[in-house]
């Protein structure tokens, strides 16, 4: 069996890159959450002048919470996937070394006694591959779900711009919130797209 460790090493780099991309997403989502809370305060102060913005502010708050939770879930899954990839790398290294011992020392009196260890390492390697596949799919799903969430955020940002036009003296403040949401959703979508790219670079063997 010929096994290359390079692919697994690339996986580790890609997973670390995803974690780095998502670190900035968390900061942006936190910023949107603060803006949404600010918008809720504004709508409360404005009595009925910005009444239409109330459910939107609530939605922005919810979506920022969803984004933060989603980033946490993605980070946790990426961490799990990294652990699995490290374990796989260790199994591959062990398998290669055990196999080289078997080939180079075929005349050794007790060489056959290492067969169970070799078999076990091979089984561990296969188990790691399966675990990787499962976690990879889960991570893809989480990224996809987050992407949809950001698509909704952009849509609500467009709606909120229309609603803020009726908010009289609160119009400008609420417009800033709507723009912030749109920018944040665009930024997060870009980062998710980069994360997808990293993940696709290390697609399943």
């Amino acid at each position: 069996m010929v096994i290359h460790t390079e692919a697994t090493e690339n996986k580790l780099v890609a997973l670390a890159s995803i974690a780095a991309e998502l670190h900035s997403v968390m900061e942006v989502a936190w910023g949107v959450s603060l803006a949404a809370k600010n918008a809720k305060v504004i709508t409360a102060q404005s009595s009925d002048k910005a009444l239409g913005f109330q459910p939107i502010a609530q939605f922005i708050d919810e979506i920022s919470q969803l984004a933060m939770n989603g980033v946490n879930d993605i980070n946790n899954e990426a961490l799990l996937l990294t652990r699995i990839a490290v374990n796989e790398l260790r199994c591959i290294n062990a398998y290669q070394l055990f196999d080289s011992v078997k080939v180079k020392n075929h005349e050794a009196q007790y060489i056959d006694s290492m067969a169970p260890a070799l078999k076990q390492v091979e089984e561990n390697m296969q188990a790691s591959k399966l675990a990787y596949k499962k976690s990879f799919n889960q991570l893809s799903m989480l990224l996809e779900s987050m992407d949809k969430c950001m698509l909704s955020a952009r849509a609500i940002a467009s709606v909120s711009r229309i609603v803020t036009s009726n908010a009289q003296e609160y119009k400008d403040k609420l417009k800033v919130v709507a723009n912030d949401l749109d920018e944040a959703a665009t930024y997060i979508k870009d980062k998710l797209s980069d994360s997808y790219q990293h993940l696709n670079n290390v697609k399943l063997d």
Partner: protein
Amino acid sequence: MKTTKIFDQDHQWIMFGRDHEKPESIIDTNQYMVVSGKRAIIMDPGGIEVFAPMLGAVLHHAKVDEITDLFASHQDPDIISSLGLWDQALPHATLHSPWLWEGFIRHFGMNNIEYAAIPDEGSSINLGSLTLEFIPAHYLHSSGNFHVYDRQAKILMSGDVGAALEACEAPLYVEDFEEHIPKMKMFHQRWMPSNRAKNDWITRVRELDIECMAPQHGRIFKGDDVTRFLDWFEELEVGTAIHSGK
């Protein structure tokens, strides 16, 4: 990897080392295995780089499932960084090592092997009918450090004490003690930190009946050369790097 039986009676001591295939930039190490009946212990099994030739060499002398024990005199990478691989080769083995280093040594990867922590005062292990003693050698050079003494074979596996930095071509045994001194002087002065610890160890070891002192680097001392080494080491001032700050 060169394999030599240094004791062959009821049980065997086998030395592995002088590995010509190892990368040039890593220090040459001596690994030892004691085989007693259907059980074997590998002492200071070495670093990751020597794992494959070491396992290959071991399989000429013992079956995998007969290697029931490992010993690591201390935590250094040339001593035990191969642990993560032995852990997969010998999942039912026990590693005997200083209690002080357990949390550190586990960083090398240890999911299967059992850690048997050796207390500061030392302990012993029964390998079938053979008893091996773990002799305290703290601060020589590691702060938690043990050597292995075989009362029956009169062999002391002395870890870094008695070590010399030499090429792979070096003979297995010290042939001319005076000529050997320059090869080990700097090693002991620089790596050994404490004169007090050194003298404490010498007092302890002088009470043992030793025919053969087997270090982890360099050559093995036999017969009168063991006493010569102890006398020389007693006179040697160690921990010399602190003088450079004068």
